[in-house]
């Protein structure tokens, strides 16, 4: 690491079992997207991975050549992005964009690829898939477009999908449909999912395990149920408490004072210490290590116990 580099992620480790659904939560700038993008080596320059390894199928993804990486991207690990308007190419038909992934990774005839594309459009419940396939993205609604993006991600039958805020740009009723669809597909084909979102409700409904990130570090990791109901880290606790649902209507919301520090001003010791209600001397000087409490792993000197 060079001396003046900004550190976006620090000492982030997690594992994902086959077919598991993992959520990464955090506020903007917490590093959740960087963490997920690193898996596919999609960090844009001048950013780089300065240390550590990313193991997938027994291979270290950080050491692969460009070509080896292309074999993984879109084939073994697919990605779903936030805004389907930006992800789809506006001047190509949906069919072209869908079969592109197949032709890139498999020896497959044109007709066969087209049939596979139609099948996977039907799989994401797009009505009259055979005619839709020749349409352009602007002819579809936002929800439909996101379905197409999901179909493209799944067309090569990857064992893992990384979804970066897949429902944030959508309305609630469409969001519910898309979440339903993702769950259905994950369950039926045993696809693993890394879901990045800032919406704790989405995490609660979609994932089995969750990671909470703050200022480039994992502050808490555990079963989603425990994170939601029994948060150990004061930040997670504050985040949950700040939800309007947690307060009687009309009352003031519980707020966490201040904001997340920018990467070049991360405080000494625990990065959360200036905002933490439980802050102590040790928090200002020493970076907390992880302690295990039940199903959760938490980085805090003052981690909340069961009762509090």
């Amino acid at each position, binding site marked *: 690491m060079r001396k003046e580099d900004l550190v976006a992620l620090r000492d982030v480790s997690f594992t994902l079992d086959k077919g598991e659904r993992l959520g990464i939560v955090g*506020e*903007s700038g917490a590093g959740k997207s960087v963490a997920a993008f690193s898996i596919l080596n999609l960090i844009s320059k001048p950013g780089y991975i300065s240390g550590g390894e990313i193991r997938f199928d027994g291979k270290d993804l950080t050491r692969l050549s460009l070509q080896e990486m292309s074999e993984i991207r879109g084939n073994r690990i697919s990605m779903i992005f936030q805004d389907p308007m930006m992800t789809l190419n506006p001047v190509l038909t949906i069919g072209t964009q869908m079969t592109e992934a197949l032709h890139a990774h498999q020896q497959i005839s044109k007709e066969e690829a087209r049939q596979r594309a139609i099948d996977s459009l039907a799989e994401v419940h797009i009505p009259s898939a055979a005619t839709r396939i020749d349409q352009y993205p602007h002819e579809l*609604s*936002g*929800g*439909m477009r996101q379905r197409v993006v999901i179909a493209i991600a799944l067309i090569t039958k990857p064992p893992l999908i990384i979804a970066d805020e897949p429902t944030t740009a959508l*309305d*609630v*009723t*469409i*969001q*519910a*449909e898309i*979440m*339903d669809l993702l*769950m259905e597909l994950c369950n039926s084909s045993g696809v693993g999912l890394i879901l990045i979102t*800032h*919406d*704790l*409700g*989405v995490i*609660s*409904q*979609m994932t089995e395990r969750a990671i909470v990130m703050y200022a480039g570090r994992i502050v808490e990791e555990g079963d989603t*149920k425990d994170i*939601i*109901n029994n948060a150990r880290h004061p930040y997670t606790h*504050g*985040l949950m408490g*700040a*939800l*309007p*649902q947690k*307060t009687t*209507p*009309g009352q*003031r*919301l*519980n*707020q*966490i*004072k201040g*904001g*997340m520090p920018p990467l070049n001003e991360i405080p000494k010791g625990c990065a959360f210490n200036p905002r933490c209600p439980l802050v102590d001397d040790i928090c200002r000087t020493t970076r907390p290590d992880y302690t295990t409490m039940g199903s959760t792993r938490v980085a805090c000197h003052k981690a909340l116990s069961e009762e509090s």
Partner: protein
Amino acid sequence: MSQPALVGVHDLYKEFPIHGGLLEQLSFENGRLIRKRESVKAISGVDLEVIKGESLCVVGESGCGKSTLARVIMGLIRPSQGEVTYDQKRIDDLSMGDMLPYRRKMQMIFQNPYASLNPRMTVQQTLEEPIRFHNPDLSNSEIKDIVVSVTKSVGVDPSWSSRYPHEFSGGQRQRISIARALAVDPEFIVADEPISALDVSIQAQVLNLLMDAREQRDLTFLFITHDLAVVEHFGSRVAVMYLGTLCELAPTRKLFSVPRHPYTQALLSAIPKLNQDSSEYIKLKGEVPTPVNLPRGCVFHSRCIHTNERCTREVPEIKVYDDTSIACHAVEEGRI
């Protein structure tokens, strides 16, 4: 209703033409020259009253016309038909000059604090401008005093006011745009998705700030949002919009405990909740129809599970049941 309305909207329509110039309107069909004019029907027949001192929330999905409604009320765009009143006086047909006193009383907070603050003006300049404009008699030092007190009241350090917007975080920027709205001492505030662009912990801070301001300054709010959790917390009454029309208007607690309109029911069930499986929501069939060609009858009928023949034919009128107004044939006929 016992109290008089501060702001009223009566039979409001707003259409945006999308047909272009004369040549673009012309086309050949079956050997004949046809002139076609199309428009987006953003609002089709909305009646609404905001009572003094209340916080009326308008919810709905993208494209339902909630932001257009806000803009028409503020006088930023003119309605195609219908009227807007303030203190029982019609204001939508006023000239720019006659509108001025109302502009001071009505202020707006926008969604995106990155776009609504001028990047080339310091906070001081941003806040001074509306005060100077609306109170030309004030001296410089009086204006400075107001700026200091208003920045303090939104939790921004007055010594930072020589800074530019880019030097602030999103939450602080939204505080500054709230300060700008409060600086001219308004009575009525239209907030168009004021916290949607912010992170959860910052949302709570800004929402608390708005609630403080509402109490201290006795403000009336029209709060536009798509986030129903915020509505339940902030609003005294809620108006649900769908495709340019009002579906249901009810006191907040009532709307959340017994939603009556089928669209409201679907909307409420779709909010992701903590500790609940995702599949327990009312699935709507189909998609939102385009506002260019509105469906006949009830605009919601193509997606509603309670549709009957009457819904496809006749536009439902708003009917009042106790303190709830609902536009739905099924509710009226007692089918729901």
